[in-house]
């Protein structure tokens, strides 16, 4: 069965610091990969996704993620975080065919001034 691991439960950064949130998955076949973000009091929004092609994917608000197939990873990055990036971030993986979308447990990011 598919599984997704987000190793950092809570990350605290100062404004302008660089961000990298880890995501590893277990699935042997072709995968579609997603990062969702949930800002305080708001609903879950798609941040970026990877289906095929260039493994470096750029999303909204300056976020990017890199798919490294050999490491089964899809880490999320941002070179300089802002206070408004404070949110919970979820990595999700979907295998091919009629397989469900499986979420990690989420990483809470707190950005302080």
């Amino acid at each position, binding site marked *: 069965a598919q599984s*997704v691991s987000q190793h950092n*439960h809570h990350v605290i950064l100062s404004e302008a610091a660089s961000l990298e949130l880890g995501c590893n998955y277990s699935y042997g076949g072709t995968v*579609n990969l*997603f990062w*969702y973000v949930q800002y305080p009091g*708001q*609903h*879950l*929004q*798609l941040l970026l*996704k990877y*289906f*095929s092609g260039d493994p470096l994917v750029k999303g909204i608000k300056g976020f990017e993620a890199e798919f490294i197939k050999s490491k089964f990873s899809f880490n999320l990055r941002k070179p300089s975080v802002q206070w408004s990036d404070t949110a919970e971030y*979820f990595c*999700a993986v979907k295998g*091919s*065919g009629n397989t*469900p*979308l*499986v*979420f*990690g*447990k*989420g990483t809470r990011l707190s950005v302080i001034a």
Partner: protein
Amino acid sequence: SQTIHQWPATLVQPVGSPLSLECTVEGTSNPNLYWYRQAAGRGLQLLFYSVGIGQISSEVPQNLSASRPQDRQFILSSKKLLLSDSGFYLCAWSVSSGGADTQYFGPGTRLTVL
């Protein structure tokens, strides 16, 4: 553009009472529809999904059921709520595109069972 609605936004119910949460999607036809429960520190757990009217698949045995009476309406129900049913319930939709479909989420319903 497509939009997804959920109501109510919050709900407080006593143990043993029935439940009905509604989700509707606008701006698309024949969407795939999903119900998830989100628990703090545990991510999202898929409860039910539907690929068409009257077609429901259950991912996890629950004190809950789902129905899809119309193409763009998905309902989550329970005959008798348990304390453990408290949580944040999210509805999502997607449109199949050769397996590469993206799910979009509604605002959620916060359910508290007392």
